[in-house]
């Protein structure tokens, strides 16, 4: 069979399976943040969420391209794209939102030992363990490599002391992947190690941070003499920065993806419903209409650029730093989207209990989290454009 007919057969199989296995409740749009399934030891799942996660997990389709031996679906990039398209087509929700899938998994696949892969990846795939990311610190934001959380070598284990900040969902996570300084004498990039530990370990505590958008997933996380077994060191001691950077490229692609249109309706149609239409059926605010049309051109071009990046990656022609371009633009695009939605909503959008205002405020973090827009522009200047001394 040719490649195309094999893919078409796969598409038909996926379509039938989704039709039979995706519960109707999981084919409605997510209503709020609380409606997203993150998995984990303490997850409180609705019955349809549980069923959907279990069925997709059994097939490895929560992580379609991961190898089967680690709980993945073993699909090719083309097959995974077919699966994603068919899920979109049938309005299926993602069965599992997970930093384990988006960030840690790819890093473990590349840098983890066989034992680490076998221990952690299947639990990520099935949504059993929920992970959080211990990167930023109060004095290490854009300058992440300035981090100061210490891990003292105690023979078979490390003793970790310090503080992290902006740890998303630290209060709900089961385990953390964390950057620590194992060698304070070494140069700042080479004294860093990448470790994993259970958030239930004695000495770990968290405190939520209230943001301008009200409720927020962010926490401060404190480590007070936390014991971390050395088998949980990923890569070698002092080699954490390479793992961290690799993981960041995945995080940046993930955040960049928010620039893609998620709602079924173009922004202009959503706005027309909010503002109203004139006698010709046009959005009854010509200036807003023009701004939205300009936005939609950029949004469409961005979706195509994401697609092209996937094609380039498949052909092994993608620049490794291109995720910074996607992160930068996707974040800025999402901020523009929410500014336009606020304009369209007028005073109705200003009510504190409505979602619009909080989503608008939340979007402002897009160009800060995962590396600020300015840091991404630095990366593009230095690594892609090869400008001097950047």
């Amino acid at each position, binding site marked *: 069979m040719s490649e195309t007919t094999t893919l078409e057969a796969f598409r038909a199989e996926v379509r039938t399976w989704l039709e039979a296995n995706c519960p109707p409740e999981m084919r409605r749009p997510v209503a709020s943040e609380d409606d997203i399934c993150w998995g984990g030891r303490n997850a409180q799942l609705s019955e349809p969420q549980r069923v959907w996660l279990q069925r997709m997990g059994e097939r490895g389709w929560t992580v379609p391209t991961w190898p089967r031996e680690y709980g993945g679906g073993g699909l090719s990039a083309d097959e995974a794209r077919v699966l994603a398209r068919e899920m979109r087509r049938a309005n299926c929700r993602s069965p599992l939102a997970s930093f384990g899938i988006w960030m840690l998994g790819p890093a473990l696949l590349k840098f983890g030992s066989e034992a680490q892969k076998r221990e952690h990846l299947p639990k990520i795939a099935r949504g059993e363990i929920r992970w959080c990311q211990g990167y930023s610190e109060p004095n290490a934001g854009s300058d992440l490599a300035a981090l100061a959380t210490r891990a003292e070598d105690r023979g078979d284990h490390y003793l970790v002391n310090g503080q992290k900040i902006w740890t998303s969902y630290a209060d709900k996570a089961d385990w953390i992947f964390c950057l620590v300084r194992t060698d304070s004498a070494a140069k700042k990039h080479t004294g860093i190690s990448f470790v994993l530990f259970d958030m239930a370990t004695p000495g770990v505590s968290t405190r939520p941070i209230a943001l301008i958008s009200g409720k927020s997933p962010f926490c401060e996380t404190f480590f007070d003499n936390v014991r971390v077994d050395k088998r949980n060191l990923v890569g070698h001691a002092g080699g954490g920065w390479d793992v961290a950077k690799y993981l960041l490229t995945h995080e940046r692609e993930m955040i960049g993806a928010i620039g893609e249109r998620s709602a079924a309706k173009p922004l*202009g149609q959503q706005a027309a419903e909010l503002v109203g239409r004139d006698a010709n059926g046009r959005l009854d605010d010509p200036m807003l209409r023009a701004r939205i049309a300009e936005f939609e051109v950029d949004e469409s071009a961005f979706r195509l650029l994401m697609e*092209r990046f996937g094609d380039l990656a498949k052909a092994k022609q993608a620049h490794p730093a291109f995720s910074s371009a996607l992160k930068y633009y996707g974040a800025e695009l999402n901020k523009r989207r929410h500014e336009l939605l606020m304009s369209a909503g007028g005073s109705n959008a200003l009510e504190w209990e409505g979602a619009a205002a909080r989503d608008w405020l939340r979007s402002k973090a897009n160009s800060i989290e995962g590396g600020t827009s300015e840091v991404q522009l630095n990366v593009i200047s230095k690594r892609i454009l090869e400008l*001097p*001394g950047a």
Partner: protein
Amino acid sequence: MPLLLNEEQEMLRDSARDFLRENAPVAQLRQLRDSHDPAGFSGPLWSRFADMGYTGLLVPEALGGAGLGMVEAGVLMEQIGRHLSATPFLASGVLAVSALRQAGSPAQQQHWLPRLARGEAIATLAVDEQAKHRPEQIALQATRQGEGWCLNGAKCFVLDGHMASLLIVVARSGGAAGDQQGLSLFALPRDSAGVTVTRTVMVDAHNAARVTLSEVRLPADALLGAADAAWPVLQAVLDAGRAAAAAELLGIAEEVFERTLGYLKERKQFGRAIGEFQGLQHRAAMLYVDIELARAALMNALQTLDVERERAVEAVAIAKAKCGSAATLAVQEGVQMHGGMGMTDQFEIGFFMKRARVLQELFGDSAFQQERLSRLRGY
């Protein structure tokens, strides 16, 4: 289909790049401008275009062409943009060939397409009548006269009109200005009685013409396609032209960006390369992203034109809008970052700025395309 060029398309790009670098660089455009060349493009170059198979790139093989599609035409246009090569390829090889292919009868195609493919004849499309591109406002009158037609009115911004032996004229045979219904296409030989063509040298040293038609008599077989129903064909022809112009804009953006980046690395002030300054680095990085967005949008538009014409309308509007705004940003940043040198006529960056301005306006600028997109998407 992946949003990448395939191997043959990459080969075409490389050979077009080498050919144009050798035979039609910016220096040639400068020479044509300074010598007030009566044609505005090099005759020998156009002959070599025919030898290379470029003139008939979109003409079917059976009629003497290469039988290729819009992706290939876009690849060539992008290289034309990088070198600012002055040729009638857009007017003749894209617009006129598309119109004849879409609307021409077999007899009309057999008469014109082989000659256009060989580069013996040059044809162009006469659509605009006012300063801004408003195709539904066309008012040039076509009235039936016996078996034939009589045309009266004026056109402007007719690309390479002074060198074309065939004008494809969009005229109003029914309805009123503003209606999409009632438009017809005519194949009008330039030397017909009552046709006046005035060359207008544009800011970019390329040519457009003003065309006046006064009691121009045409036989019935001059009509291309069905009377009063040219709108869909016109849209398809204009979309091919818009996509081709977008490709040239992308080529301009790329070339200017590459030159500017080189300058940032080499120009020293305050004892260091100016490319070390973050104020310039970030602007260069933003421009880089904008050009990559434009490239993805263009590739999608060209591919869609070749496989799914109905869906291409939206894709072309997005591509023309994005390539236009990316090129506009590129030439502005290009001149600014080159400082005083960027403003000199001796330096080539200014040529790119002028050409980009003309291409922005051609067949609807970014604002026109955005307006089109908002209508297509129902708001």
